[in-house]
């Protein structure tokens, strides 16, 4: 007979409790008045009674119940412990042990008789000590006990010797597996094969294994270069053993997700009743195991999602009937392992998300613009419920819908390196999918190099790697207001240059590399590209916390020790994104706007545009706004006071330099002449690039002076120059003269 987990746990716990009782009784004999001890005994018996009732062990329940009645009186002080009572209680302990043994070996309570003991216990509790019952099993040595049982309670110290005799082997004949023979013979008892271990010890073991993994990596690196067959073989073996050990130790920290799910049916029942709905819970993959730290972390998010489902996901029974669905809704919890991650799905067969209500609410709350909303896909609209402060509940219930909700779920799951996704089918239901790593202590990570330093990026944050070579590396990166972006399959990807962000000097190797490495990473709900000098290997790294002194550095998730023994920092992608965003406060807004402009490229009217470069940026002007393009010999450039001027068409043309420095290598100046009334002004640019005719829509994306906005010109995001504003900015004197 196979015992299920609950029964096994019950046996282990009960055996432990009984061992404790033995000690307590011995101590109690020395001090019969110690009520605290009686309370402990009471608790143990009470626990056994409760669980045995739950497991359907009737005899055990009834006999412990009788014991409990006596103990509760003793605990309250209504009765004082007398030797007959001690004897009866010890007999109880032994009888319980015998029943447990029988349950363990045969799966049932067996033929053990409890009626006699029950009667004795109840009689003692009633104060009507019945002398006969304990003798009922005639062959039993319990016959030794009657003496103390009938002995007047006024002689407590008189008969202490009788008690040990009574406990010696009272139940031996009742069960073939008596405590004594059982312990000696059946070595595979559950109590013997299980050990309770402090979690901190497991953590320590995990740390040590982490160290071992690092040492193994070091040795493997070394042996890969050594031509020593013995070393190679030994390190190969070390590799295998370490991997196995790592897996096994990790397993000790693993617990089935069923432990966390166990309380959900009750949550669902209560909530469904409160909402007047009928919901039943189905669980699949209960045994799927996860690191206990992760289980702890997803407990609350899971509960929240389930509450949400019941509260908002399911329709009322009446509505379900109308829709031709079964009256009772089904909430399905599914868990399974997939590619080194754990997937948890919470699905309901309710009405699905109300996209209209969500859109309306999103607009109301101002979390998204109307225009933006129009362009969103159904899936994007569904994701809106993960935005902070979002709740579609028509009325706030006391259970959910207080506006703190799915965003918190998302944040908590992402904190442990997981992701949350949501799919909904109108009328058919909603599925929330959570993907989380199996463990936090050892994670696969990609190493990257920047400025001669190595950094690790946890694999869970990686989306893809992009390598640009030659011309595409040079032209691939565009600038929007000083922020770099890369166009990845028609989507603008903001770029963060790791070396620049960290203020690292570029190494000679990196200078020599004409290519560009972009690591597309996922942070919060957005993606960005991390530009690094070089990309290394993927390896398992052991995450170690940074000290207190570095608590403020949100850009790191920790540190690790690499195969060569050096320390490498682990990047916190979300923190890095935040840091980069803070540095370029306007960037994101600009990129978003530019991305929208990109999407809106079709609208707007056709214009003829002049494209030119200045200060390293490509800029545009409507051709209609300028008078002429000139190429002036550098020699014509003269200075008048602190201003640059040139002789032009018999007059003097004030010049304004666009960009940082004048190009000195070419003989001629490229000048765009702008005229207003009588006066003209020349803008010196680096290079006039092209004149194009295109349909553009200029979007005002930033408050940068001198720039009208940005638009997509020839497939590139280009800033439009505001000639008047530039003149005002660069040469206020000219502005006055122009008017």
């Amino acid at each position, binding site marked *: 007979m196979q015992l299920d987990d609950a029964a096994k746990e019950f046996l282990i716990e009960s055996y432990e409790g009984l061992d404790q009782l033995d000690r307590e009784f011995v101590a109690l004999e020395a001090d019969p008045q110690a009520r605290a001890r009686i309370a402990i005994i009471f608790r143990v018996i009470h626990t056994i009674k409760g669980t045995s009732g739950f497991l359907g062990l009737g005899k055990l329940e009834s006999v412990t119940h009788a014991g409990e009645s006596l103990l509760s009186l003793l605990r309250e002080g209504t009765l004082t412990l007398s030797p007959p009572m001690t004897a009866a209680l010890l007999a109880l302990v032994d009888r319980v042990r015998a029943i447990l043994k029988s349950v363990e070996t045969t799966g049932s309570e067996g033929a053990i008789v409890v009626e006699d003991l029950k009667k004795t216990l109840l009689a003692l509790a009633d104060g009507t000590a019945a002398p006969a019952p304990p003798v009922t099993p005639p062959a039993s040595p319990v016959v030794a006990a009657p003496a103390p049982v009938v002995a007047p309670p006024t002689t407590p110290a008189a008969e202490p010797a009788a008690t040990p005799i009574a406990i010696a082997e009272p139940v031996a004949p009742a069960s073939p597996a008596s405590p004594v023979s059982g312990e000696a013979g059946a070595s595979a008892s559950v109590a013997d094969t299980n050990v309770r271990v402090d979690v901190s010890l497991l953590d320590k073991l995990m740390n040590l294994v982490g160290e071992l993994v690092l040492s193994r990596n070091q040795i493997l690196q070394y042996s890969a270069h050594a031509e020593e067959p013995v070393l190679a073989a030994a390190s190969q073996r070390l590799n295998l053993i370490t991997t196995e050990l790592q897996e096994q130790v990790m397993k000790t920290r693993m617990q089935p997700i069923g432990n966390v799910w166990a309380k959900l049916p009750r949550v669902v029942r209560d909530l469904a009743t409160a909402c007047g709905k009928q919901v039943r819970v189905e669980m699949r993959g209960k045994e799927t195991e996860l690191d206990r730290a992760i289980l702890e972390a997803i407990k609350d998010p899971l509960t929240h999602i389930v509450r949400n489902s019941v509260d908002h996901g399911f329709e009322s029974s009446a509505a379900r009937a109308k829709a031709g669905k079964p009256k009772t809704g089904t909430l399905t919890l599914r868990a399974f392992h997939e590619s080194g991650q754990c997937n948890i799905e919470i699905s309901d067969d309710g009405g699905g998300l109300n996209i209209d209500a969500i859109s309306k609410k999103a607009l109301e709350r101002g979390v998204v613009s109307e225009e933006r909303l129009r362009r969103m896909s159904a899936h994007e609209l569904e994701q809106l419920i993960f935005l902070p402060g979002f709740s579609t509940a028509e009325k706030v219930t006391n259970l959910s819908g207080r506006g703190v909700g799915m965003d918190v779920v998302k944040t908590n799951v992402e904190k442990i390196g997981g992701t949350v996704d949501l799919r909904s089918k109108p009328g058919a239901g909603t599925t929330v999918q959570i993907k989380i790593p199996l463990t936090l202590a050892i994670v696969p990570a990609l190493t990257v190099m920047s400025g001669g330093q190595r950094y690790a990026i946890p694999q869970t944050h990686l989306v893809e790697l992009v390598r640009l070579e030659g011309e595409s590396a040079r032209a691939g990166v565009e600038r929007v207001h000083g922020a770099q972006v890369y166009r990845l399959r028609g989507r603008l990807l903001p770029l963060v240059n790791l070396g620049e*962000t960290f203020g690292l000097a570029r190494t000679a190797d990196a200078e020599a590399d004409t290519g560009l490495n972009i690591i597309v990473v996922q942070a919060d709900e957005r993606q960005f590209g991390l530009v690094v000098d070089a990309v290394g290997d993927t390896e398992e790294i052991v995450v*170690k916390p940074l*000290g*207190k*002194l570095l608590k403020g*550095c949100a850009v790191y998730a920790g540190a690790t*020790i690499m195969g060569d023994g*050096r*320390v490498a*920092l682990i990047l916190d992608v979300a923190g890095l994104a935040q840091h980069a965003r803070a540095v370029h406060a306007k960037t994101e807004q600009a990129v978003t706007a530019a991305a929208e402009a990109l999407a809106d490229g079709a609208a707007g009217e056709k214009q003829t545009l002049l494209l030119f470069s200045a200060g390293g940026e490509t800029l545009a002007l409507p051709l209609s706004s300028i008078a002429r393009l000139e190429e002036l010999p550098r020699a014509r450039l003269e200075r008048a006071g602190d201003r640059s001027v040139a002789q032009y068409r018999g007059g003097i043309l004030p010049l304004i330099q666009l960009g940082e420095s004048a190009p000195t290598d070419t003989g001629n100046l490229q000048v765009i002449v702008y005229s207003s009334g009588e006066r003209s002004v020349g803008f010196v640019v680096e290079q006039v690039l092209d004149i194009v005719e295109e349909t553009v829509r200029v979007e005002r994306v930033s408050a940068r002076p001198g720039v009208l906005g940005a638009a997509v010109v020839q497939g590139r995001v280009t800033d439009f120059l505001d000639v008047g504003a530039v003149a005002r900015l660069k040469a206020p004197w000219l502005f006055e003269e122009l008017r």
Partner: protein
Amino acid sequence: MSSETRQVCTFTVAGLRLGVDVTQVQEVLRHQEMTPVPLAPSVVTGLINLRGQIVTALDLRGRLQLPPRPSGELPSNVVVRHGDAMVSLLVDDIGDVLEVDASTFEPPPATLTGSTRALISGVYKLSPHLLMLLNTDLVLRLEAQNPA
């Protein structure tokens, strides 16, 4: 006069003779390779791998607002326990462990100013040099300082 003594691990930083109570010191090490931590407070020089433990290295010159270490000179490490973690104080040279008498101890002299004064608990009048006892708790309290 009490003859109470304590043992002090001594070292020099920019010509100053400093010490910390020997019970706080985990170990002293020659120069170790360090991994710099960009965007960290400026006094955090890097991270050291101390037998699998990651130890933050703090530049004492920077912390005491003393002139930076001449290039080419490598600092030594005085690893001190800080709570349940360890921090390495980067110093110029490591000296002996000295037994000092409490009777020679005095609070920081009034003539001493600036960061150094704020971060030492007192001075032992030894000959020929004074020995300043660092208050490691204060040295390792960075939050009020420049998080450069």
